[in-house]
């Protein structure tokens, strides 16, 4: 009896909320594929709490408005095996009607680049329709920051503690950077997200940390204002000629490249630098991408490309995205394809170097 009552409520409730949402939407008509009345599933191979979730939740409603037929866009989470599970699932998808899209992240690319045995996916098979870059900022507690004057020479010999999610993750980039600067950083592994790392820093348990741009703006910038943290450097941004330039979101901060050049013993050429740069590109400027599955026809790719372009062309896009994502290139079309290429191709030497470094420094092997 009562169970059926509940079901009825649920159906009613759902219908009501759907009606409210639909009443605010505009009916659109366009060329390419029409998604009217359909539900687009945006699969994210992570859990609900990560950065990819934030990114997808930011885009999903905007994309829904911009796609022809204003389909409902739902974000579906498929976490597991460090995102390789979701990516392997997507690899097996064949294009059907354009209602499945996939959002990959740096953490999906790293296992691919490092030759993780669980990887059964091939980026070359997929069709990229949008790519989002991001940046990162390293920061220090105020007492240690006094010893930092644009070079890391005076920070040598300090015991640094860093809350890390694991050496084979995106944390590879900061860990390698600090090591190149000659800092002794002991990573405390096993934390669940960068937010926990920040909390460790705030509690005084960690004394060095980094956050991606959006998390830095939200979580660390207030600490900086209160005098509880001082930015050290940004990872930088990728310039037009492939060089590392200052991050447009943080134009006043030196980049790691500048700090490295000023620090004795740190080289901005050679295999160590090349390896760092290759993984930096995969992890930051080419961090998040949206794909249509293998076999998607040109008109579907065009429809999604156009929709993302329309989102980026919104008059308020710069404003709303600056807070949520930071000021980074949001790329479509050829630019996105080029990003995909630079983010998923790492020179063999860089790969070998990183694999050796992981093994010698942290005892991590991928087999």
């Amino acid at each position: 009896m009562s169970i059926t009552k509940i079901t009825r409520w649920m159906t009613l409730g759902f219908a009501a909320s759907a009606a409210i949402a639909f009443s605010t939407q505009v009916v659109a008509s366009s060329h390419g594929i029409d998604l009217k009345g359909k539900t687009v599933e945006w699969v994210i191979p992570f859990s609900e709490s990560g950065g990819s979730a934030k990114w997808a939740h930011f885009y999903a409603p905007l994309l829904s408005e911009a796609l022809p037929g204003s389909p409902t866009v739902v974000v579906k989470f498929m976490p597991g095996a460090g995102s390789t599970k979701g990516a392997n699932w997507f690899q097996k998808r064949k294009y059907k009607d354009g209602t499945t899209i996939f959002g990959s992240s740096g953490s999906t690319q790293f296992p691919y680049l490092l030759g993780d045995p669980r990887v059964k996916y091939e980026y070359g098979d997929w069709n990229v329709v949008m790519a989002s870059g991001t940046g990162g900022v390293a920061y220090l507690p105020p007492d240690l920051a006094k010893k930092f004057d644009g070079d890391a020479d005076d920070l040598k010999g300090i015991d640094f503690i860093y809350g890390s999610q694991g050496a084979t993750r995106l944390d590879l980039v900061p860990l390698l950077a600090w090591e190149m600067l000659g800092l002794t950083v002991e990573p405390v592994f096993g934390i669940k997200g960068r937010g926990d790392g920040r909390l460790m820093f705030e509690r005084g348990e960690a004394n060095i940390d980094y956050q991606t741009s959006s998390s830095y703006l939200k979580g660390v910038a207030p600490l900086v204002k209160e005098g509880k943290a001082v930015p050290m450097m940004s990872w930088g941004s990728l310039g037009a000629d492939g060089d590392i330039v200052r991050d447009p979101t943080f134009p006043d901060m030196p980049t790691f490249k500048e700090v490295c050049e000023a620090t004795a013993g740190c080289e901005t050429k050679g295999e160590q630098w090349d390896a760092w740069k290759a993984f930096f590109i995969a992890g930051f400027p080419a961090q998040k991408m949206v794909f249509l599955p293998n076999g998607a026809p040109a008109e579907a790719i065009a429809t999604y490309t156009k929709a993302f372009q329309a989102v980026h062309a919104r008059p308020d896009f710069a404003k709303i995205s600056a807070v949520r994502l930071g000021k980074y290139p949001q790329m479509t079309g050829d630019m996105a394809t080029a990003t995909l290429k630079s983010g998923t191709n790492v020179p063999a030497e860089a790969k070998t170097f990183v694999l050796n470094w992981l093994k010698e420094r942290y005892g991590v092997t991928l087999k």
Partner: protein
Amino acid sequence: MDLLGTALPALAEAFSLILQPQQLTFLVLGVLLGLSVGVFPGLGGIAGLSLVLPFVYGMEPVSGLALMVGLVAVIPTSDTFASVLMGIPGSSASQATVLDGFPLAKKGEAARALSAAFASSLFGGLLGAFFLTFFILIARPIVLAFGLPEMLMITILGLSMVAILAGRLPLKGVAAACMGLLVGTIGEADAGGSLRMSSYSIPYLTDGLQLVIVGMGIFAIPEIISLLRQDRAISRDATLGAGWLKGVSDWWDNIWLSIRCSLIGVIVGVIPGLGGSVVDWIAYGHTVQTTGDKSGFGSGEIRGVIGPESSNNAKEGGGLVPTLIFGIPGSGSMAIFLGGLALLGYDAGPQLITNDLDITYTVVWSLALANVVGAGLCILLSPGIARLTTIRFTMLAPFLFMMITFAAFQSRQSLGDLVALFAVGLLGIFLRRFDWSRPAFLIGFVLSTQAENFSFQAYQIAMSKFRRGADVGLEYIFSPIVIILLIITVVSIIVGIRQAKSIMSEGEVPVGGKRAPLIFLLIVTVYFVVSYFDAAAITMQTDRIFPMTIAFVATVSCLLLLIRMSRAPNTDVIFADREAAGEDAEAPQGLWRTLAWFAILLILSSLVGFILALAIFFVVFLRIRAGRTWSRTLLLAAGGIALICIMAGSLNRDFPPGLLQTFVELPWPLGGI
């Protein structure tokens, strides 16, 4: 600081924001959705919030917040239905409710248990909201005072509850808890990524087992199978005894207990990183310790329901503190809540409290109102829903199999989920049969990851502090909070061991022959030994110490148990075996034949997909096992499948695909993902 001067105007402002017809409508809508989702085991705040998230964007902020908070706030209220009526832990926060809630249902007092639970939930929720109001202004330094040593101590306090729930033989409880801890380490280690008791060729295992599956396997499957074998209603004489008024007055009689457990809920909820899964156990342990006559626990003591239920709703209020002021979600549903908050144009963090205190307080008001509406509705519904316990169980069983299979599949959306559910269920059946404490196992499992990570991280940081100076290190490890927690833990272990003998957390178990208990003990010992050597083979120091230590302790406990077995007569409690005498032994249906029904559903699912398998299973089961007429059978089967389709459809969930689906592409709901 002028606390009241800051809080009161903002509170009043928030009150006028929320008390608008439109906002209240959304709040009630959220509550209704939350109740409907929460009733199904395995589906909780995450599923519910994901459902409304696409619609939140563009909504008026207060309405959106009311909708989301309404939904989240009532999940720990409505998940009580499954815990009490079916013995299925509705979510991680109501595991302890099963221990006494389900026995009450079996006694025919389901309505009483439910209404006591809802009254406690309501009270806990309100108290949580009340504390949230003031706490949120001063919480930052307090939350920051909880470093890794403090969190480790809370985890250990949670583990110390094993002492109370261990059962008649403390050693067996230790072994059961170690088994839970070890099962919790299966898969990739968090620290270094080494594989433990798993391999990349079985990708499913590398992520470890999910709590939903372990909870249902350990608690629900053994009970469902046992009831099905006895072929009667859940309530022993198929009647409803004490009614819902009795439950409410039970709660009132234990109001102080309810207050204390609510406080426990708020405090544990405030600490980020602990999650909700330890709250109910700590509350249950506290309840047992502070009850004069402990003989009723495990066989239907109403205080055992009031304690955990007061704490788990209060936890939601506490959990909003780190979520709102640090932007760090304490749970999966809080993470989505943060996402929804961002869609409404607000970012969690200190600036939310300073700049938008009125908006923050609408969250508090929504929380309080949602608790009132939700608990009120549940109390009204409970006499009706409690009638389920008077239905012949054979009629309910296929629906329960359907629900737990579907819920298990949601955890990883893989056929491995079904295999894992069956395997853990089998383990649960044996733990129950030989009287190994299932609560101890579950506590171990739930706290395994935290215990390992916190101890390593705290150790690493302490070492670095000691390098700076012995005083810095000691100050870090032995903070006042750690010392207080340490004292509580020691006291609770001593009290626990003293009292454990009088607490039958799962009722009286008869003793019988020596052979079966001995074989089970030997198998368990082999598992421990294999785990030990598996862990010893890991090269990374950080990833091997924890499982090696636990496996070692467990093996020693087992050896001591073996020694006792070799000396004791076969009337000793160590030879507890439910198949030797009593209810299970006299059941009209055999264990394996009953279990085979469940296996059939799973095997069929792997062949033809879930919905087709369900159709076949329903018809065959209801016709042959339950002996219904053809018309009844078809009607019930159609109803069951329609129910699951409506639910999965509205939540945008998929069903397990089978072999058939890899060859033929079928439309939803028949097709796969």
